[in-house]
């Protein structure tokens, strides 16, 4: 069975304290991996798509990387406005099927 596991479940950082969120997956035939940001009470907001091991994508203070077994979302010098739940999701086989992890809730303290 395809599985996506995100860690840690929750992360509290001081403003400016860089860290990484992990998304590990056990799937057969990864076709793509997505990262989303979700604010409380809102729909997920798309951040990145990664397709192959070694690929990297950057957006402001966020950088996503992909290996054959996991993806990392690196947050450099975070600000309070980066506080949110970050979700990763994998596309396996047919592109209709996207399996989501349960997310990492990030809190950045001023």
């Amino acid at each position, binding site marked *: 069975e395809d599985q996506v596991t995100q860690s840690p479940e929750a992360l509290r950082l001081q403003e400016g304290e860089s860290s990484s969120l992990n998304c590990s997956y056990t799937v057969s035939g990864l*076709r793509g991996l*997505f990262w989303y940001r979700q604010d409380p009470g809102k*729909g997920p*907001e798309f951040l990145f798509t990664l397709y192959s091991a070694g690929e990297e994508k950057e957006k402001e203070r966020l950088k996503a990387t992909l290996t054959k077994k996991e993806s990392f979302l690196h947050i450099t010098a975070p600000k309070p406005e980066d506080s949110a739940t970050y979700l990763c999701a994998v*596309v396996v086989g047919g*592109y*209709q*099927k996207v*399996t*989501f992890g349960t997310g990492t809730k990030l809190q950045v303290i001023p």
Partner: protein
Amino acid sequence: SQTIHQWPATLVQPVGSPLSLECTVEGTSNPNLYWYRQAAGRGLQLLFYSVGIGQISSEVPQNLSASRPQDRQFILSSKKLLLSDSGFYLCAWRNPGLGYNEQFFGPGTRLTVL
């Protein structure tokens, strides 16, 4: 640009009552459409997806049904709500012509069944 709308934003319904949630997409044609449910502490669960008008695929047997009466309209329904139907319902769309690309989500509907 494309936008996706969902309504209502919040809904409180008694057990046994019917349900109708609506999702519409603007600025694109022939999108793939999806309904997800998000329960507290759990990942997004895919409920239904549609690749075209009248074409619905169900992922999880349950008390819900979906319909796509128009190209950019997706409706989630129930004849009799259960307590377990409470949750945050999200509609999403993707452009099917661009490979394994991302889905874009609407603002969601918070459903509470009492």
